[in-house]
C-alpha cells in the first residue's frame, strides 16, 4: 500500500537558517500520528513545508504524497489534492463571509475531484450538518472568516473547515492550545468523528491530555529539527512525566 505521506531526510531552512535537519516520517491512511517536542524544535516548520509555505526553503530530502512529489505542487493544488492544515494561528479575513469562503474552497476541491459544484442551499445544508458534528456555534458561520473570533472559536473553525473539505491528510498544528476543557473535548470528539480508514492525521501538540481523547497510533518526538524518537501512546505519558531533557540525551546524532 502506498503511504499517504512519506517524508525522507527532509531539510529546510528559513532565511538561510537551517530548521529541519533531516526529518523522516511515514503515514498510512487511517493512522493518526502525534508529533510532540519542545518549543522551537521545528514542528510548525514541518507543517508549513508540507503545506507549501514559500518562505521555507527545502534544502534536501523528498516528500511523497499519495506517491506523488509533494514539493513540486503549488499550495492550492496540494489543498485540492486533499492536504489540509489546521493553522496554529488562523488568519482573519475581514469582510469575507464564512459561507462565501467555504463555497469557493469546497467547490474548488470538488471541481478538482470531478464533482459538481454545490449551490448555496446544498452548501448551507452541508455546513449545518458539519457544524453540528463538531459542535460549532452555528452563528459563527454567519460572520466574516475568523474576524473577531475568540482564540478557541478560531481553532474550532479550523476543524469545521476540515470537516467541510473532506481531506486525505489533515495536519493539525496545536489545535488544542488555548482551548478550555469543554472546547478541547469537542475538538477531540470532532477529530474522532472525522477519523476514517481513508484519512490520515498528523497532530502536533504539547499536551498529553489531548491524546487522552484522541488516541494516537504513533507518537513522535521532534528535537532540533529531527524526529528523534517514535513510539506509541505510552511515549506521550513518559514525556509528560519526564520532560524533554532525557530525549536530548537519547538523541545523540548518529
Amino acid at each position, binding site marked *: 500500500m502506498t503511504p499517504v505521506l512519506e517524508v525522507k531526510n527532509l531539510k529546510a531552512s528559513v532565511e538561510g537558517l537551517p530548521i529541519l535537519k533531516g526529518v523522516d516520517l511515514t503515514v498510512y491512511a487511517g493512522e493518526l500520528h502525534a508529533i510532540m517536542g519542545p518549543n522551537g524544535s521545528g514542528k510548525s516548520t514541518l507543517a508549513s513545508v508540507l*503545506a*507549501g509555505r*514559500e518562505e521555507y526553503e527545502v534544502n534536501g530530502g523528498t516528500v511523497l504524497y499519495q506517491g506523488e512529489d509533494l514539493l513540486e505542487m503549488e499550495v*492550492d493544488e496540494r*489543498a485540492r489534492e486533499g492536504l489540509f492544515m489546521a*493553522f496554529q494561528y488562523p*488568519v482573519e479575513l*475581514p469582510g*469575507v463571509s464564512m459561507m462565501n469562503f467555504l463555497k*469557493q474552497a469546497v467547490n474548488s476541491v470538488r471541481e478538482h475531484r470531478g464533482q459538481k459544484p454545490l449551490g448555496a442551499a446544498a452548501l448551507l445544508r452541508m455546513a449545518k450538518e458539519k457544524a453540528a458534528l463538531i459542535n460549532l456555534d452555528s452563528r459563527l458561520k454567519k460572520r466574516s472568516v475568523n474576524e473577531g473570533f475568540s482564540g478557541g472559536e478560531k481553532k474550532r473553525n479550523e476543524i469545521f473547515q476540515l470537516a467541510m473539505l473532506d481531506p486525505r491528510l489533515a495536519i493539525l498544528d496545536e489545535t488544542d492550545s488555548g482551548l478550555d476543557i469543554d472546547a478541547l473535548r469537542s475538538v477531540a470528539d470532532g477529530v474522532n468523528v472525522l477519523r476514517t480508514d481513508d484519512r490520515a492525521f498528523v497532530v502536533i501538540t504539547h499536551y498529553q491530555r489531548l491524546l487522552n481523547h484522541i488516541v494516537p497510533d504513533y507518537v513522535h518526538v521532534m528535537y532540533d529539527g529531527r524526529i528523534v524518537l517514535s513510539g506509541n501512546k505510552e511515549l506521550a505519558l513518559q514525556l509528560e512525566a519526564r520532560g524533554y531533557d532525557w530525549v536530548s540525551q537519547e538523541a545523540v546524532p548518529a
Partner: protein
Amino acid sequence: MNTDTQYLHEVAASDYEHGWVTEVVSDTIPKGLSEDIIRLIASKKQDPDWMLENRLRAFRYWQKLEAADQRPNWAHLSIPAIDFQNISYYSAPGSKPKYESLEEVDPEILRTFERLGIPLQEQKLLAGVAVDAVIDSVSVATSFKEELSQLGIIFCSFTEAIEKHPELVQKYMGSVVPYTDNFYAALNAAVFSDGSFCYIPPGVRCPMELSTYFRINEAGTGQFERTLIVADKGSYVSYLEGCTAPRRDDNQLHAAVVEIIAHEDAEVKYSTIQNWYPGDSGGTGGVFNFVTKRGICLEDRAKISWTQLETGSSITWKYPSVILKGDNTKGEFYSVAFTKGRQQADTGTKMLHLGRNTSSTIISKGISAGRSSNSYRGLVRINRKADNARNFSQCDSMLLGDRCGAHTFPYLETSNPTAQVEHEATTSKVGEDQIFYCKQRGISEQDAIKLIVSGFCQEILAKLPMEFAVEARKLLAIELEGSVG
C-alpha cells in the same frame, strides 16, 4: 519573491471592458474656448437669455482664473498641462441637440446603451430604475417620465428642465456649487451642455431608483454635464450615476457638477459607479475626471448620503461634500476607490457642520495596485454655532504590490468645543498570510485576492442599492481579473 507578485502584475495590466467606439455622425463644434464658442453652445442648446448670461459670467470668471494661472494644484496628483483650446466643448451624436422620442434616436446610439447594459426601449427597461442616458453633450432618452410625473416628480434632461421648469433651475442652479467655487466648476458653468434634473415634491417617496448614465463617445471632446437634484420637504430619492468612455490615446476631460438640495426632513442617497476609461497600463490616454459634487441639507433633519465606487479615469479629482446647514442634519460619505496601472486618484469629502446636532460619517476604502497613486483627502469643519456636532471618519487603504502608493490627508477644523470627532486610519497590504490561508483551502491565488479585496470593500458595497451592488461587485471582479480580453 512574493506569492502574489505575478498575479498583481496581471491585475495592474488588466483590460478595460467598455473601450469600444460608436460609429455615428456627430455634430461636433470646432475646438477652442472663447465667448463665441459659448454663444455657439448656447444657440445649439437654444438657451434662454438668462442662461447665456450665466454662461458668459462664468466664462469671464474662468478666464480670470486661467490668466492668473489658478488651476487647482494642491491635490496629490501630477496633472499634465491641459490645453483648453484643444478641446471641443460640444458634440451631439446623430447631430440632434434634443430628442422628443426614442424614434428619433439613431439605432447605433440605442445599441450603444444596450451594449452597456442600459436598454432604453420601454419594454426592455430595468424594472424599478428610471434612466436618463447622456452621450457626449446630449441627453438621448429619459425613461419612466410619465409614471413619475403622476407623482409630481420631475425627472428629465437638464436641457428640458431649462425649457420647461426655468423657475426651478434659476432658483437652485449654482446655489450649492456657484461658478466661483473653483476652476472646473467655473468651466462647467460656462460650457455645460446637458445632464439630468430631478425634483421630488413635498412628502413624495420616489418609488424607483433614478439614474443617469454618462457616456463619452466622440474623440477630442470633453463632457461637461450638470446634475441638479432637489428634494422638497419630507421627500426621498435614491439616485444612481454610471459612466464609461471609449479607449482613446488622448486624454479626455470630464468636468461635471452635481448639486443636491435637501429641504426639511428630506433624504437623498446618491450612488456612483465611475468607470471612465483609465488609460492603458503605461499611462497613455484616459479620462481626466475633475468633478465638483456637493449637497446641502438646507433645513432641519435633512440627510444626504454619497456612496461611490471609483474604478476608472486616469486622474480623479473629486470630493462629494455635504453642507449641514439645518439642525439635526446628517451627511454620509462611503467610498471605494480602486486604482491600478498609472491611475491617480485624489478623492474624499468635505463635511461642513453649520447647524446644531449635525452628524457626519465618512468611510473611505482605497485600494491601489500597479504603479497607481491613491489618496484620500477629507475635511471636517465644525463651525462656531454647530453645537454638539459629531463626526466619525475611517480611512482604510490596501496596497496590492509595492510600487503603488496610498496617502491619507485628513483635515479637521473645529471652532466649537462641544464637537465630538473620531478618526481612524489603517493601511494594510493584502497579507501573504491571508493569501496563503485561502490557498491552503484550495482557493486559487487570483480568487483569494478577489475575495480579500471584496471583503475589504464589503461594508461600502453593502450600502449600494441592490442591483447596483451586484454590478459593483462584478466590476470590481473584472478590475481584479488578470486576463480579461
